Protein backbone atom coordinates (compact mmCIF):
# COMPACT_ATOMS: atom_id res chain seq x y z
CA UNK A 1 0.00 0.00 0.00
CA UNK A 2 2.97 2.29 0.38
CA UNK A 3 3.01 2.86 -3.33
CA UNK A 4 -0.73 3.04 -3.81
CA UNK A 5 -0.45 6.58 -5.14
CA UNK A 6 -0.24 6.36 -8.86
CA UNK A 7 1.89 9.14 -10.21
CA UNK A 8 -0.70 10.24 -12.76
CA UNK A 9 -3.81 10.45 -10.61
CA UNK A 10 -4.85 13.39 -8.48
CA UNK A 11 -6.21 11.03 -5.86
CA UNK A 12 -4.87 11.86 -2.38
CA UNK A 13 -2.54 14.44 -3.84
CA UNK A 14 -1.56 17.41 -1.76
CA UNK A 15 -3.93 20.37 -2.22
CA UNK A 16 -1.06 22.41 -3.66
CA UNK A 17 -0.95 20.08 -6.65
CA UNK A 18 -4.49 21.08 -7.54
CA UNK A 19 -3.53 24.71 -8.05
CA UNK A 20 -4.50 26.07 -11.44
CA UNK A 21 -1.61 28.01 -13.02
CA UNK A 22 -2.11 31.75 -12.59
CA UNK A 23 -1.28 32.17 -16.28
CA UNK A 24 -4.45 30.31 -17.05
CA UNK A 25 -6.72 32.16 -14.61
CA UNK A 26 -5.40 35.68 -15.16
CA UNK A 27 -7.27 36.54 -18.39
CA UNK A 28 -10.59 35.34 -16.91
CA UNK A 29 -9.91 37.27 -13.75
CA UNK A 30 -9.08 40.51 -15.56
CA UNK A 31 -12.20 40.34 -17.68
CA UNK A 32 -14.32 39.21 -14.74
CA UNK A 33 -13.08 41.98 -12.47
CA UNK A 34 -13.62 44.66 -15.10
CA UNK A 35 -17.08 43.34 -15.92
CA UNK A 36 -17.99 43.15 -12.24
CA UNK A 37 -16.83 46.70 -11.69
CA UNK A 38 -18.85 47.97 -14.66
CA UNK A 39 -21.99 46.33 -13.36
CA UNK A 40 -21.46 47.61 -9.83
CA UNK A 41 -20.85 51.13 -11.09
CA UNK A 42 -23.86 50.95 -13.38
CA UNK A 43 -26.12 49.76 -10.58
CA UNK A 44 -24.70 51.97 -7.88
CA UNK A 45 -24.02 55.33 -9.37
CA UNK A 46 -25.74 56.26 -12.57
CA UNK A 47 -26.68 59.35 -10.71
CA UNK A 48 -23.69 60.45 -8.78
CA UNK A 49 -19.97 60.35 -9.25
CA UNK A 50 -20.27 58.81 -12.66
CA UNK A 51 -23.16 59.87 -14.80
CA UNK A 52 -24.24 57.76 -17.69
CA UNK A 53 -25.73 60.07 -20.32
CA UNK A 54 -28.95 58.06 -20.63
CA UNK A 55 -30.67 60.12 -17.96
CA UNK A 56 -31.89 58.56 -14.77
CA UNK A 57 -33.81 55.57 -16.13
CA UNK A 58 -31.40 52.90 -14.90
CA UNK A 59 -30.91 54.80 -11.69
CA UNK A 60 -34.61 54.79 -10.99
CA UNK A 61 -35.14 51.22 -12.14
CA UNK A 62 -32.65 49.68 -9.71
CA UNK A 63 -33.27 52.30 -7.04
CA UNK A 64 -34.49 50.02 -4.24
CA UNK A 65 -31.78 47.47 -4.87
CA UNK A 66 -29.18 50.18 -4.47
CA UNK A 67 -30.52 51.24 -1.09
CA UNK A 68 -30.96 47.72 0.25
CA UNK A 69 -27.62 46.46 -1.05
CA UNK A 70 -25.89 49.26 0.81
CA UNK A 71 -24.79 51.44 -2.11
CA UNK A 72 -24.91 55.18 -1.60
CA UNK A 73 -27.97 56.65 -3.25
CA UNK A 74 -29.30 59.90 -1.92
Amino acid at each position, binding site marked *: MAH*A*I*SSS*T*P*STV*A*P*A*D*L*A*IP*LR*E*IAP*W*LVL*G*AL*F*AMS*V*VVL*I*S*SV*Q*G*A*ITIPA*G*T*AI*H*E*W*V*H*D*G*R*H*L*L*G*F*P*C*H
Partner: protein
Amino acid sequence: MTTRTFLVHGLLAGLLAGVAAFVVAYTVGEPQVDRAIALESAGATADHHHEDDVTTSGAASHSHSHDDAAISRTTQSTLGLATGTLAIGIVLGGLTGLLSAVGLGRLGSLRPAASTALVALLGAVSFSVVPFLKYPATPPAVGSGETIDSRTALWFGFVAVSVLGVLAAVAVARRAAHRWSGVPGIVAGAAAYVVVVAVAALFFPEVDELGGFPASVLWDFRISSLLTLLAMWAVIGAVLTVLVDRTWRRQEAAAAQRAFAATL
Protein backbone atom coordinates in the same frame (compact mmCIF):
# COMPACT_ATOMS: atom_id res chain seq x y z
CA MET B 1 -10.84 21.22 -11.95
CA THR B 2 -10.42 24.11 -14.32
CA THR B 3 -11.10 27.84 -14.26
CA ARG B 4 -14.23 27.13 -16.25
CA THR B 5 -15.56 24.83 -13.51
CA PHE B 6 -15.21 27.58 -10.95
CA LEU B 7 -16.68 30.32 -13.12
CA VAL B 8 -19.72 28.28 -14.10
CA HIS B 9 -20.34 27.23 -10.50
CA GLY B 10 -19.84 30.81 -9.33
CA LEU B 11 -22.33 32.21 -11.84
CA LEU B 12 -24.90 29.61 -10.83
CA ALA B 13 -24.34 30.32 -7.14
CA GLY B 14 -24.64 34.03 -7.87
CA LEU B 15 -27.92 33.59 -9.69
CA LEU B 16 -29.40 31.73 -6.73
CA ALA B 17 -27.90 34.30 -4.39
CA GLY B 18 -29.58 37.07 -6.36
CA VAL B 19 -32.92 35.30 -5.96
CA ALA B 20 -32.34 34.83 -2.24
CA ALA B 21 -31.33 38.46 -1.81
CA PHE B 22 -34.45 39.56 -3.66
CA VAL B 23 -36.69 37.46 -1.42
CA VAL B 24 -35.11 38.88 1.73
CA ALA B 25 -35.00 42.44 0.38
CA TYR B 26 -38.60 42.30 -0.77
CA THR B 27 -40.05 40.79 2.39
CA VAL B 28 -37.84 42.41 5.04
CA GLY B 29 -36.43 45.48 3.33
CA GLU B 30 -39.23 46.94 1.26
CA PRO B 31 -41.49 47.71 4.23
CA GLN B 32 -38.64 49.81 5.65
CA VAL B 33 -38.08 51.57 2.33
CA ASP B 34 -41.79 52.37 2.22
CA ARG B 35 -41.72 53.72 5.75
CA ALA B 36 -38.77 55.95 4.91
CA ILE B 37 -40.44 57.27 1.78
CA ALA B 38 -43.66 57.88 3.70
CA LEU B 39 -41.73 59.92 6.25
CA GLU B 40 -40.09 61.81 3.46
CA SER B 41 -43.34 62.56 1.72
CA ALA B 42 -44.79 63.72 5.01
CA GLY B 43 -41.98 66.24 5.19
CA ALA B 44 -40.61 64.80 8.38
CA THR B 45 -37.14 65.44 7.09
CA ALA B 46 -37.46 68.75 5.39
CA ASP B 47 -33.98 69.14 4.01
CA HIS B 48 -33.67 65.65 2.63
CA HIS B 49 -35.93 64.21 0.13
CA HIS B 50 -36.66 61.56 -2.34
CA GLU B 51 -38.75 62.16 -5.40
CA ASP B 52 -40.94 59.37 -6.47
CA ASP B 53 -42.90 61.24 -9.01
CA VAL B 54 -42.45 64.23 -11.17
CA THR B 55 -44.47 66.47 -8.94
CA THR B 56 -41.61 67.37 -6.63
CA SER B 57 -39.78 70.49 -7.59
CA GLY B 58 -38.40 73.73 -6.34
CA ALA B 59 -36.40 73.65 -3.16
CA ALA B 60 -36.50 69.88 -3.11
CA SER B 61 -35.04 69.30 -6.54
CA HIS B 62 -31.41 69.04 -5.56
CA SER B 63 -31.56 65.28 -5.30
CA HIS B 64 -33.17 63.03 -7.82
CA SER B 65 -34.69 64.54 -10.87
CA HIS B 66 -37.14 62.31 -12.57
CA ASP B 67 -38.07 64.39 -15.56
CA ASP B 68 -37.56 61.59 -18.03
CA ALA B 69 -38.14 58.51 -15.92
CA ALA B 70 -41.15 58.13 -13.74
CA ILE B 71 -40.88 54.53 -12.63
CA SER B 72 -43.60 53.53 -10.22
CA ARG B 73 -42.89 52.41 -6.69
CA THR B 74 -44.42 49.03 -7.54
CA THR B 75 -41.94 48.49 -10.36
CA GLN B 76 -39.04 49.73 -8.27
CA SER B 77 -39.86 47.34 -5.45
CA THR B 78 -40.36 44.29 -7.66
CA LEU B 79 -38.76 44.15 -11.12
CA GLY B 80 -36.32 46.93 -10.34
CA LEU B 81 -35.25 45.37 -7.07
CA ALA B 82 -34.90 41.96 -8.71
CA THR B 83 -32.76 43.45 -11.49
CA GLY B 84 -30.42 44.91 -8.91
CA THR B 85 -30.09 41.84 -6.70
CA LEU B 86 -29.72 39.44 -9.64
CA ALA B 87 -27.12 41.58 -11.40
CA ILE B 88 -25.06 42.07 -8.27
CA GLY B 89 -25.52 38.43 -7.23
CA ILE B 90 -24.34 37.03 -10.56
CA VAL B 91 -21.40 39.39 -10.76
CA LEU B 92 -20.25 38.71 -7.20
CA GLY B 93 -20.87 34.98 -7.60
CA GLY B 94 -18.84 34.80 -10.82
CA LEU B 95 -16.00 36.79 -9.32
CA THR B 96 -16.03 34.70 -6.14
CA GLY B 97 -15.87 31.61 -8.35
CA LEU B 98 -12.82 32.93 -10.21
CA LEU B 99 -11.10 33.93 -6.98
CA SER B 100 -11.81 30.46 -5.60
CA ALA B 101 -10.00 29.09 -8.65
CA VAL B 102 -7.03 31.23 -7.64
CA GLY B 103 -7.36 30.04 -4.05
CA LEU B 104 -7.48 26.36 -5.00
CA GLY B 105 -4.38 24.67 -3.66
CA ARG B 106 -2.90 28.01 -2.59
CA LEU B 107 -4.49 28.42 0.84
CA GLY B 108 -2.38 26.19 3.00
CA SER B 109 -3.51 22.61 3.12
CA LEU B 110 -7.19 23.46 2.66
CA ARG B 111 -9.12 21.14 0.42
CA PRO B 112 -11.13 22.60 -2.49
CA ALA B 113 -14.38 22.92 -0.53
CA ALA B 114 -12.68 24.62 2.39
CA SER B 115 -10.60 27.01 0.31
CA THR B 116 -13.70 27.96 -1.68
CA ALA B 117 -15.71 28.60 1.48
CA LEU B 118 -12.85 30.73 2.83
CA VAL B 119 -12.70 32.82 -0.34
CA ALA B 120 -16.46 33.44 -0.12
CA LEU B 121 -16.16 34.39 3.53
CA LEU B 122 -13.36 36.83 2.81
CA GLY B 123 -15.44 38.28 -0.02
CA ALA B 124 -18.41 38.81 2.26
CA VAL B 125 -16.31 40.40 4.98
CA SER B 126 -14.22 42.65 2.76
CA PHE B 127 -16.81 43.69 0.18
CA SER B 128 -19.95 43.94 2.30
CA VAL B 129 -19.63 43.60 6.07
CA VAL B 130 -16.65 45.85 6.81
CA PRO B 131 -17.72 48.62 4.38
CA PHE B 132 -21.16 48.44 6.01
CA LEU B 133 -19.57 49.14 9.40
CA LYS B 134 -17.94 52.31 8.09
CA TYR B 135 -20.60 53.50 5.66
CA PRO B 136 -23.83 51.73 6.54
CA ALA B 137 -26.72 51.63 4.11
CA THR B 138 -29.05 54.60 4.26
CA PRO B 139 -32.75 54.59 3.54
CA PRO B 140 -34.41 56.96 1.09
CA ALA B 141 -34.77 60.43 2.61
CA VAL B 142 -31.36 60.32 4.24
CA GLY B 143 -28.52 62.16 2.57
CA SER B 144 -28.17 65.31 0.58
CA GLY B 145 -28.09 65.33 -3.20
CA GLU B 146 -25.20 67.75 -3.06
CA THR B 147 -22.88 65.23 -1.43
CA ILE B 148 -23.86 62.13 -3.39
CA ASP B 149 -20.75 62.39 -5.58
CA SER B 150 -18.34 62.54 -2.69
CA ARG B 151 -20.20 59.88 -0.70
CA THR B 152 -20.16 57.54 -3.69
CA ALA B 153 -16.44 58.12 -4.12
CA LEU B 154 -15.82 57.52 -0.42
CA TRP B 155 -17.82 54.31 -0.46
CA PHE B 156 -15.97 52.94 -3.50
CA GLY B 157 -12.67 54.06 -2.03
CA PHE B 158 -13.31 52.29 1.23
CA VAL B 159 -14.48 49.11 -0.49
CA ALA B 160 -11.33 49.19 -2.65
CA VAL B 161 -9.10 49.57 0.42
CA SER B 162 -10.95 46.75 2.17
CA VAL B 163 -10.75 44.34 -0.76
CA LEU B 164 -7.11 45.14 -1.52
CA GLY B 165 -6.45 44.87 2.21
CA VAL B 166 -7.83 41.35 2.35
CA LEU B 167 -5.77 40.34 -0.69
CA ALA B 168 -2.65 41.70 0.99
CA ALA B 169 -3.62 39.97 4.23
CA VAL B 170 -3.88 36.64 2.41
CA ALA B 171 -0.39 37.19 1.00
CA VAL B 172 0.90 37.98 4.49
CA ALA B 173 -0.85 34.91 5.91
CA ARG B 174 0.65 32.63 3.27
CA ARG B 175 4.10 33.98 3.86
CA ALA B 176 3.80 33.68 7.64
CA ALA B 177 2.33 30.19 7.36
CA HIS B 178 5.20 29.19 5.13
CA ARG B 179 7.70 30.53 7.61
CA TRP B 180 6.14 29.27 10.84
CA SER B 181 2.89 27.32 10.54
CA GLY B 182 -0.80 27.59 9.86
CA VAL B 183 -2.06 29.24 13.03
CA PRO B 184 0.52 32.05 13.16
CA GLY B 185 -0.19 32.55 9.48
CA ILE B 186 -3.91 33.01 10.07
CA VAL B 187 -3.24 35.34 13.01
CA ALA B 188 -0.79 37.42 10.97
CA GLY B 189 -3.20 37.67 8.06
CA ALA B 190 -6.16 38.63 10.24
CA ALA B 191 -4.04 41.21 12.07
CA ALA B 192 -2.82 42.70 8.79
CA TYR B 193 -6.39 43.09 7.52
CA VAL B 194 -7.66 44.59 10.77
CA VAL B 195 -4.80 47.11 10.80
CA VAL B 196 -5.41 48.13 7.18
CA VAL B 197 -9.16 48.70 7.57
CA ALA B 198 -8.84 50.28 11.00
CA VAL B 199 -6.35 52.84 9.70
CA ALA B 200 -8.50 53.43 6.63
CA ALA B 201 -11.60 53.85 8.78
CA LEU B 202 -9.79 56.50 10.83
CA PHE B 203 -8.64 58.42 7.77
CA PHE B 204 -11.82 58.20 5.73
CA PRO B 205 -14.13 61.07 6.69
CA GLU B 206 -17.32 60.50 8.58
CA VAL B 207 -20.63 60.90 6.81
CA ASP B 208 -23.45 62.15 8.98
CA GLU B 209 -26.45 63.42 7.11
CA LEU B 210 -29.15 61.78 9.15
CA GLY B 211 -30.73 65.03 10.30
CA GLY B 212 -33.87 64.25 12.22
CA PHE B 213 -34.50 60.88 10.66
CA PRO B 214 -36.17 58.54 13.21
CA ALA B 215 -33.64 56.17 14.72
CA SER B 216 -36.01 53.22 14.88
CA VAL B 217 -36.77 53.31 11.17
CA LEU B 218 -33.09 53.76 10.42
CA TRP B 219 -32.19 50.74 12.56
CA ASP B 220 -34.82 48.53 10.99
CA PHE B 221 -33.76 49.60 7.53
CA ARG B 222 -30.11 48.91 8.20
CA ILE B 223 -30.81 45.50 9.71
CA SER B 224 -32.88 44.58 6.67
CA SER B 225 -30.12 45.81 4.36
CA LEU B 226 -27.52 43.79 6.24
CA LEU B 227 -29.75 40.72 6.11
CA THR B 228 -30.07 41.16 2.35
CA LEU B 229 -26.30 41.30 1.92
CA LEU B 230 -25.74 38.37 4.26
CA ALA B 231 -28.36 36.28 2.46
CA MET B 232 -26.61 36.99 -0.82
CA TRP B 233 -23.18 36.03 0.46
CA ALA B 234 -24.43 33.01 2.40
CA VAL B 235 -25.99 31.56 -0.74
CA ILE B 236 -22.95 32.36 -2.87
CA GLY B 237 -20.69 30.66 -0.33
CA ALA B 238 -22.89 27.66 0.35
CA VAL B 239 -23.84 26.86 -3.25
CA LEU B 240 -20.36 27.45 -4.63
CA THR B 241 -18.79 25.30 -1.92
CA VAL B 242 -21.25 22.46 -2.47
CA LEU B 243 -20.77 22.53 -6.25
CA VAL B 244 -16.99 22.67 -6.04
CA ASP B 245 -16.95 19.88 -3.50
CA ARG B 246 -19.19 17.72 -5.68
CA THR B 247 -16.95 18.22 -8.70
CA TRP B 248 -13.87 17.44 -6.69
CA ARG B 249 -15.38 14.28 -5.20
CA ARG B 250 -16.36 13.04 -8.64
CA GLN B 251 -12.88 13.73 -9.92
CA GLU B 252 -11.38 11.93 -6.94
CA ALA B 253 -13.68 8.97 -7.41
CA ALA B 254 -12.81 8.74 -11.09
CA ALA B 255 -9.12 8.96 -10.32
CA ALA B 256 -9.39 6.30 -7.63
CA GLN B 257 -11.17 4.08 -10.09
CA ARG B 258 -8.45 4.57 -12.67
CA ALA B 259 -5.81 3.87 -10.06
CA PHE B 260 -7.61 0.71 -9.03
CA ALA B 261 -7.99 -0.42 -12.61
CA ALA B 262 -4.29 0.11 -13.14
CA THR B 263 -3.49 -2.32 -10.35
CA LEU B 264 -5.47 -5.14 -11.89
